[in-house]
């Protein structure tokens, strides 16, 4: 009988990181199906470029750091899947490839790789693309135009609703169309209904904490209600702000990145709320209409503090009672 000394407990829950990351990937795939319906197969090619770039960088960085590369770690694939969904369907391949490489090689690995990264890699990649190639990232083709695989210069592009709001203009998009995703915008972020379905799926699977995106959306709604940007009624301001840009997509897929979000329910609520407020501040005063990615990166740096505040408050309360 060959016995192995093991640590207690001797039974374990069956979930592993692959379960969580697999759930994320599963929830991201419907958005690609939708993207193919709207823009043709170029979306899939963009996805492959991005995923391959992220995965390759992950492997190279692991080699460079002389760490064991875990083939079961799907986190770089999740990053690779998120990045193209935040960009227009007509985005050049090199933008996606460089964003993915930046996300992994600059945002993720220098901080220690999977589980140690301070900032959300996907948000970092998108911020990089926005800063370097704003012209390519902020012009969106209208839906149901098949984008050619190579020559994208001839594609007619329009600004998104988020851009209209940014410029202080009146958004003209129909709210029903925005729910279904029939407006110009980043590939994966337009279809609000599908995104909400993803949110429900992920929170039922307990892959993401529902509290955090809810607090985020509530904060955004409150800000939009209090300070409408365009000359529209407050209710419409709330609806347009919430459904434009990458807000709901970010709330589902980027805000809840387990590595960079706080761990306690109370701190998650605070964090979600804070990201919401900062996102709106970026929208009001920032230079780009992808305010969410920048707000998220900023709050990522503070996410651990949210937990410490709660720990401190708990010990303070106990000390006061004794």
């Amino acid at each position: 009988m060959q016995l192995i000394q093991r640590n207690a407990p001797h039974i374990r829950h069956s979930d592993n990181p692959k379960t969580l990351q697999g759930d994320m990937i599963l929830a991201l795939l419907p958005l690609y199906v939708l993207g193919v319906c709207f823009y043709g197969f170029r979306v899939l090619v963009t996805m492959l470029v991005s995923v391959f770039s992220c995965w390759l960088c992950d492997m190279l960085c692991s080699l460079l750091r002389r760490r064991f590369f875990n083939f079961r770690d799907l986190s770089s694939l999740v990053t690779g899947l998120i990045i193209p969904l935040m960009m227009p369907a007509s985005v050049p391949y090199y933008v996606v490839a460089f964003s993915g490489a930046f996300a992994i090689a600059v945002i993720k690995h220098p901080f220690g790789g999977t589980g140690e990264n301070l900032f959300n890699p996907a948000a970092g990649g998108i911020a990089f693309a926005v800063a370097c190639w704003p012209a390519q990232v902020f012009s969106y083709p209208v839906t149901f135009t098949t984008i050619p695989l190579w020559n994208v210069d001839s594609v007619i592009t329009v600004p998104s609703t988020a851009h209209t709001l940014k410029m202080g203009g009146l958004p003209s998009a129909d709210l029903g169309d925005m729910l279904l995703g029939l407006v110009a915008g980043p590939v994966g972020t337009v279809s609000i209904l599908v995104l909400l379905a993803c949110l429900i799926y992920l929170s039922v699977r307990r892959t993401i904490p529902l509290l955090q995106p809810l607090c985020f959306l509530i904060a955004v709604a409150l800000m939009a209600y209090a300070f409408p940007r365009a000359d529209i009624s407050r209710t419409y301001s709330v609806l347009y702000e919430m459904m434009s840009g990458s807000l709901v997509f970010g709330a589902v897929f980027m805000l809840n990145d387990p590595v960079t979000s706080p761990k306690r329910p109370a701190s998650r609520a605070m964090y979600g709320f804070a990201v919401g407020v900062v996102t709106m501040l970026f929208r009001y005063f920032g230079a780009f209409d992808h305010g969410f990615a920048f707000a998220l990166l900023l709050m990522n740096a503070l996410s651990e503090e949210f937990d410490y505040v709660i720990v401190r408050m708990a010990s303070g309360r106990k000390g006061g009672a004794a």
Partner: protein
Amino acid sequence: MDMQNRPHKGVYLQQFKEPALSREIRTFLNASASETLIEHPATKELDDLTAWEIVDIARQAGIVDERDGRPLYQKLQRARDKEIRAVVIDAMDDEPFVSSQLGVLLHMRDSVSFGLKAVRKAVEAESSVIAVYKNLTDAETRIPGSIDGVRVARIGGKYPAELHLSRELGLRKAYITVGVCALVFLARAIISGQMQKSCFITVAGNCIANPTNLEVSLGMNLSMVLERCGLADNPTRVVIGGSMTGISIMDTDKTLISPTTRAVLAFREDEKERNYTCIGCGRCTAVCPQDLDPMFIYRAVKNRRLSMLGFLKAEKCVGCGTCSYVCPSKLPLSTVISKYSKPDGEEDEACN
């Protein structure tokens, strides 16, 4: 006060207590053990005995409480000294696979109730209750509502349930906790003058052909016990104690049954250990019954930032293993944390 009424954190664990729990308790005793009797006339009438005589019988018979490894007479004496008048009989078995206390409660009801009467008399108890753990996953186990007029309290909820015993029972006063197996040995010592020479254990796990509750002689080695119940497969891990907190052992020939052994579990797992890192999912924080942040403590230890441990309240850890259980990356959270939290010798004083 709101802390008190909040449902406690933890996990629901599938219990795997069957089929051992339903089966009659079998005996597996050393034939050579000569019957030594204590110096006290055997009696079936508790009225013949004074409280101090019962304590003395417990001392002479060498009865050890299976919960904490303390001599029963010391616990009784202490309760008398401090005038503790409430008795909680522990038949919790909140760890999966283990049912050695619950099995004794269900199958040896006469001895248990006699022993309980003796303990009640010894400490002049005003109230007593039998605590049994029952969560949602073991619906087939039938537990009586009362045994000989003593209420059987079914503690529901998540593992670890023992931690919240007093709150669940609504006990405000001090009480002593006595294991149910110790009651059986006390009853035997009073009725027939027997010393405690054996203990009750559960033998279970996915390698055991006939999972069962056994009464085995003290000092028997694990190989014999495992052989008695039959190995269906070659185990890779043999555990003494519960599936959540037990100790994995290397040599079954040299490990012996002691009065505090409550279970011997044999598992075979074919899954390899994967080198995952923490992905920060926060599930350990969500389940920790002591409301700690296991992943922060783990990281503080790994990064040698031991000054953080005080801030993170690492000393509150009770070592229940819940964080390690839920960790998707299978990190040894509770092992590392309990190494750095104080080993609490007085957790079982059961005085609040």
